[in-house]
């Protein structure tokens, strides 16, 4: 019975090929765009998640304000408010895993005749732990390097590629502002950060060396940034409170006075970036779903036309013994077949489009079995939902009225 009906539905679809194809096109575009948009959305989510995982977890960044004179903010002539001593004090707080003062800036790196400008990060050994940054060859510098301001450096992959090409950077000497630095370690690859900057285009050196030889700050002992890692996500609120209180006390800020530093919660920033891409992904899917809806309405429209055109056929079928449910099933099956066939074509085109997008723009795409399944289910659902009304109209026809039609 079902096989006979499938055959008939196939026949009916073939009888008006142009119309069937155009009706299907609505579904093709709908499903195709859902699949494509979901692939792009999930790709974006994936790459953000990837980025977040390279950032290090449970991180805060403390950013210096500038010193004030007599309670007034000086225009910018002042030095940073945070100090290495602040960092050391924070390290004593409960729930703090790693603290690293940071002084960074863009500098020209010179190796032989090669020039390359990269972000130079002056910091202390805990920095690598906080960022969960691996050394792929060589060794990291230690506390003694910071104490004696040695000229050693860890180089990121991008900077290494541009300065050394195929050469092994380990043991080579580069120059920053005429000072020679020996490369003692090569950093693992991290890719872009949330702002889209290449984290591997970097050189990490001891904080003291950076301050004395590279940036030449007049405010020895003070730093622009302090990176703080909490032991766990649960510890973060307590760490945030403790840090703020500690710094206010150390900076002798009176009640009611503003903080002279900024606190940035990277974990929260990561969450909001993830949330943003998730919303974008849902939005893309929703917009694409509208075209699926339009495709469904197209099916309903054509099925209604088809029922009207075939009223006499329905009458004949009823006269030779078709029950209402036979007629209902016949037209429903036709609608579902159109939408499922359109869905299959749409899937192929959507996946093809996603692969092409990746090929042409390098955008990360993710085609999950889930999204394919959802598209398929929705298409079948659309067929049933939008096919039901026309099919019901067909089934509810009075046999004699239908036979008299035309």
């Amino acid at each position, binding site marked *: 019975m079902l096989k006979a009906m499938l055959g008939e539905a196939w026949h009916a679809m073939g009888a008006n090929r142009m119309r069937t194809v155009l009706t299907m096109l609505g579904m093709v575009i709908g499903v195709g765009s859902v699949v494509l948009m979901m692939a792009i959305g999930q790709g974006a989510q994936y790459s953000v998640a990837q980025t977040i995982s390279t950032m290090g977890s449970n991180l805060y960044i403390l950013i210096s304000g500038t010193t004030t004179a007599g309670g007034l903010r000086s225009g910018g002539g002042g030095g940073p408010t945070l100090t290495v001593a602040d960092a050391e004090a924070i390290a004593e707080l409960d729930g703090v895993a790693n603290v690293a003062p940071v002084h960074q800036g863009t500098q020209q790196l010179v190796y032989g005749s090669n020039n390359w400008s990269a972000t130079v990060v002056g910091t202390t050994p805990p920095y690598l732990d906080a960022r969960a940054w691996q050394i792929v060859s060589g060794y990291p510098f230690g506390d003694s390097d910071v104490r004696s301001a040695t000229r050693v450096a860890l180089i990121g992959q991008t900077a290494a590629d541009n300065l050394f090409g195929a050469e092994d950077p380990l043991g080579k000497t580069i120059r920053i502002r005429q000072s020679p630095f020996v490369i003692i370690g090569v950093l693992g690859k991290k890719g872009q950060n949330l702002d889209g900057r290449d984290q591997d285009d970097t050189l990490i050196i001891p904080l003291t060396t950076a301050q004395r030889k590279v940036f030449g700050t007049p405010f020895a002992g003070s730093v622009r940034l302090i990176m703080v890692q909490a032991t766990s996500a649960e510890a973060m609120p307590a760490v945030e409170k403790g840090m703020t209180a500690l710094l206010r006390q150390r900076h002798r800020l009176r009640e009611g006075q503003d903080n002279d530093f900024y606190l940035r919660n990277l974990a929260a920033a990561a969450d909001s970036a993830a949330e943003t891409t998730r919303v974008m992904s849902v939005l893309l899917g929703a917009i694409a779903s509208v075209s699926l809806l339009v495709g469904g309405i197209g099916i309903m429209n054509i099925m209604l036309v088809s029922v009207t055109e075939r009223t006499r056929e329905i009458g004949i079928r009823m006269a*030779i013994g*078709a029950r209402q449910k036979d007629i209902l099933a016949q037209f429903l099956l036709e609608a579902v077949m159109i939408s499922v066939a359109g869905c299959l074509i749409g899937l192929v085109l959507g996946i093809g489009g996603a692969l092409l997008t990746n090929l042409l723009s390098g955008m990360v795409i993710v085609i999950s079995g889930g999204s394919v399944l959802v598209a398929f289910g929705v298409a079948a659902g659309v067929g049933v939902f939008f096919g039901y009304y026309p099919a019901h109209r067909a089934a509810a026809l009075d046999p004699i009225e239908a036979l008299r039609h035309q």
Partner: protein
Amino acid sequence: MPEAIIRVAGLGKSYLTAAGPFPALRGVDLEIEAGEFVAIMGPSGSGKSTFMNLLGCLDTPSSGDYFLVGRNAAQLGKDELAALRNLTIGFVFQGFNLLPRMTLEDNVALPLVYAGFEREARRARARLELGRVGLGDYTASLPSRISGGQQQRVAIARALVNSPRLILADEPTGNLDSHTSDEIMALFAELNREGITIVLVTHEADIAAYARRQVRFRDGLIVSDLPTPAPALAAATC
């Protein structure tokens, strides 16, 4: 006396028209026994088709009762009526009413689909019936490829495919030339000899002559109900 295959009592049917209800049937009483061959006659507009549509359970009466094989049609549900149309009745229309996009075999097999037969059984039955009406070589043809007389034979094959007890035919020869009409009528006469009850509408005397009983309608009422006078039947078919 066996239970009549058709028994109607006080059967009436009014159509709603712009000018108000129009009584197309105005109280018809009739009994037809199993195995009869009845011609329904009468001028155009006398209510013959209306009556046939009621007998075929395609339409519902405005008043009166209709018992088909002893069952009160008014008390049957839609699915039961569909089953009666499928299994008990074979309907033959003036305009053939084949489905144009289906092969002859598929057309003939369609009632078997609704009866729930498997594909192989459907094919075998459909071929058998097509052979019986002399179209065994045309199973894969489309209706548009054959003549009117052949189309009506296919329609008869379709009516026969579920082995009905009753064939209802509303002017089955109305669109056919007289030679073809005789062939179709000979086919009906043969089916009747095999025991199938046949009720057919015609307003031609020589067609009605094939039947053994002639019921005449006028203005929605039966005006005469007589055995066929000169049995042309014997001369035409033997």
